[in-house]
Structure formats: structure tokens, C-alpha cells
């Protein structure tokens, strides 16, 4: 199994508070992704990173920011959490779009966030 650890696995917070989710990998993969999973929507990409300090937005990036200061860590921050951000958040890693890479991703076990 790919070495991906998400923390915390569960968190309950209140509207307006900041929240940071952490993704840690031991695979030295260049690409890291944050998805959110909601019923009826499948997985939607929030942000991704293609290297240290290199990040880009996904389809649902509003209200979220990310940082990647080390290859192994990718942080997702909700500056001021809202109830619409209640979701399950998944981190994924991939080797990137090289000639031999297929786009296959490896996923963490998810972080369940509840915003009251």
C-alpha cells in the first residue's frame, strides 16, 4: 500500500474557525491532491501540487488554501470554516504526467470534517 497518512481522521469544529488538514506521504511522489467527497457529487478536486511550493486550483477551490513546503507534506487550510465545507476530504498522490505515468492516484483513508 502507498504510504499516505491523513490527519486528523475526524474533526468537529464550529463555523468561522480555521481548520488545517495534513497529508503526509513516504513515496516521494511529485504530485499531491486534495479532493472532497460529497453524496451525489463523487470526488471533486480542490487543489493540487506538482512540486514543493508549486500548487494550482481545482474545480472547487473557493474557501480553501494549500501549502507544500516539503515533498512529503501537503496541507489543506480552511481559513474560516462554513457548514458547506462539511465533507470527507481525501488526499491522493501520483507520479505525475510523465511519459510513463498513467494518471493513477493512490489515496489516503480520508478526513471527516463536520462544521457546526
Amino acid at each position, binding site marked *: 500500500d502507498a504510504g*499516505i497518512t491523513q490527519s486528523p481522521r475526524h474533526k468537529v469544529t464550529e463555523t468561522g474557525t480555521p481548520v488545517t488538514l495534513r497529508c503526509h506521504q513516504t513515496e516521494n511522489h511529485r504530485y499531491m491532491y486534495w479532493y472532497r467527497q460529497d453524496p451525489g457529487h463523487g470526488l*471533486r478536486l480542490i487543489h493540487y501540487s506538482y512540486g514543493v511550493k508549486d500548487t494550482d486550483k481545482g474545480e472547487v477551490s473557493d474557501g480553501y488554501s494549500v501549502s507544500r513546503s516539503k515533498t512529503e507534506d501537503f496541507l489543506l487550510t480552511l481559513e474560516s470554516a462554513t457548514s458547506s465545507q462539511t465533507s470527507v476530504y481525501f488526499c491522493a498522490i501520483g507520479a505525475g*504526467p510523465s511519459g510513463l505515468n498513467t*494518471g493513477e492516484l493512490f489515496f489516503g*483513508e480520508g478526513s471527516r470534517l463536520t462544521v457546526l
Partner: protein
Amino acid sequence: AQSVTQLDSQVPVFEEAPVELRCNYSSSVSVYLFWYVQYPNQGLQLLLKYLSGSTLVKGINGFEAEFNKSQTSFHLRKPSVHISDTAEYFCAVSVPFTDKLIFGTGTRLQVFP
């Protein structure tokens, strides 16, 4: 842009019956196609993938999928399901040499004894 449509949100089936989970995609360029499975309270794991070559792809746990370019489909099949196959299944597409994977909305397979 690419998109993926999973036509069934839920598929109930009895144990040992065959099952087909449907997936259609839209793309103006060649794509790679994937099926991922998510067991309860877990992350996603790769079931199988189509990159090129034979249109019939075999994956783990007895699943297979067939790529049909003319119908832009990549349906997942299993001839005889088990209770343990109860999970959510996601179809996904990527464009070679790009860095994003686009997912469908998922199909929940419920296997009954």
C-alpha cells in the same frame, strides 16, 4: 474538457448474480480510463485501468471492464458477485501527459444474500 457519467447511482443485486456498472465518458482526445473501488470508511483503491491495447481489461477481485471507443463507454462487469463486493465504485478518466483525474459521481453496489 473531459467528463464522466455513471448512469446508475445505486445497483442492488443478489449474491452470485452477475452485475454491470455503467460508465460513459466525453473527450475530444484519447484518454486513459480507470475504475476505483471504495469500501466503507476507506479511501479509494484502483480496481483496473485501460491505457491502450486490448479493449477487455481484467482487474482485481474478478472484475473486468471493456473499453468501447465508438460508444465512449467503459462498463465494469463481474459474472458472480459476493457480499464483500458491496462498495462504491468510481469511474475516472485522465488525459495522457496531463495531471488531473476526473471522477464520475459513483455507483453504490449493494449485494444482498
